[in-house]
């Protein structure tokens, strides 16, 4: 993952691959969190008068 002045051009696809992986990870983590928060919201709505 080192980056310096002599970085060969093959780095570009790696950066793109990293970006795609990050977007996928972000999407997965946030999906799980949204599900957790929705469940907590339902718990509050269902049982708090």
């Amino acid at each position: 993952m080192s980056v310096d002045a002599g970085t060969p051009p093959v780095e570009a696809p790696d950066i793109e691959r990293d970006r795609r992986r990050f977007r996928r990870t972000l999407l997965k983590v946030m999906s799980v969190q949204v599900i957790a928060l929705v469940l907590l919201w339902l718990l509050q709505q269902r049982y708090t008068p």
Partner: protein
Amino acid sequence: MRAMHPLNWLVVVGWLAYVAIDGLRRARGTKHIEGYFLANRNLPWWAVGLSVMATQLSAVTMIGTTGQGAVDGMRFVQFYFGLPLAMVILGVTLVPFLHGARVFTAYEYLERRFDAKTRSLTAFLFLLSRGMSCGTILAAPAVVFSAIFGWPLGWCVLLMGVPTVLYTMIGGVQAVTWADVKQMVLIVVAITAVVTVLLLRIPVSPSDALHLAGATGRLRVFDFSFSLENTYTFWSGLIGGTFLMLSYFGTDQSQVQRYLTARSVPEARSSLLISAYWKIPLQALVLLIGVLVFVFYQFEAPPMLYNPVQAKTVRERQPAAVAALQTRYDAAVAARRAAANAVSVARRAGDDAAMPATIEYRARDSAVTRVRGEALALVERTTGEPSKDVNYIIPRFVVEQLPIGLAGLFIAGVMAAAMSAIAAELNSLATSTVIDFYKRWWRREGPDAHFLAVSRGATAMWGVFACIVATYAARIGSLIEVVNRFGSFFYGSILGVFLLAMIPRARAMGAFVGLIAGMAAVAAVNFGAPRVSFLWHNVVGAVTVVVAGMLVSAVMGGGAPRAAAEARVS
């Protein structure tokens, strides 16, 4: 109160012995400091991830947070809403920088990027705050166990402190990480078992139990009000919490060192994502224990005062007043029990019948809370001590109500939580002491055996320091509070310095002046106007450092800029 069954003690002692012996066994083969401090950067991501979680989950979580759930409900979970986002941000920013730089400590990277004084100041601030907090992490469960079991405080400190210091000192980060894995498994098993037992022992259906908890507001998770003074709101958790978690997981050596032991940057990222996925559900489960204990005590007589030492003192000094309060308390509890049963019956008849029963139940619960409030006020007047007994609710429930074996499992879980947090702190304190100070300023070169011996000595020294602080915690409580408060001044500011490190135009002088400005800004909002909750301090600190640091960098310069990537590969 009832003493713990010998079988429970067997479980506790067996667990402590197992962790200590296994830690010592892992000392074999550690011949140099990269192995001792970073396990040769060769640990699997899942072990690192569990170690990250175990380090953050201390005994305070097991007894304090559960107790808070019983008294205050689930809203504390909002504190963690920023954590998943922080983990993802760290995964693409600081983790590749720190892991790629092949450093031992986070502060070492700051010298490569800026200069030695910025590194030394941040490392010194870390040692100061973590050294003291290590003592308080040990003191919190020791004080509770001392009151519950009637042992001298020093014994309780040594019971947890000695095995932890031994396996950390001899086994290094290998022992710490693999002990953390075992401790984390034990903690999850203990929490799940207690929730299951509670659901089985509460004499109403789980739905009725949740209805009773909800009627008193204990299932109110979300508070969308935007108040800078209120700590637990959705916005303070999401925004302030994100900055706090970025500071803690990104710049605190006790956490950074965990993922520096991973085999690669992707494995380090994956280890952090375990917390991103599981922290909120686990924390909700921990709080749910407290909520269910509250419901359990609707049908069983709860103690009026949970701290047995304070209860005994106030009974001896004010027998008539306590007897009068106890009579009123028993009557209020009996009336609340009848109201709780009425709610359960009414719910079976339909929603229309349930509402008046629920209103009546809430009034009865308020009456119980009022009498208990009077009892706590009497304790304060009589003893002159703070009477907050939230930390004693769960330990008393565990010792008096859980079946044989399970009580021992939970107490072992509390000790495991304390030990895993302390071990990681000791390990990181020793690393920073040796790498950022001894090896940087004292002796740069030497045989591996020498640095290994110094590292073990530093671990032992910090272990002894933590035990002394914990033993005298009650007496030096105000000093610890001052240090902890001081610690909150620079947490966000150090994050700001690391953010500056990633900006190519930032200079060393800018980072140093920015750090001072950040701490001053946090001090200003802490003591002066406007007063803001501590979760926002990290936002104030980090933003001030970046703004002041960039201004100074632009105006004063302070040496040629070093690109972040250049610092990483040097």
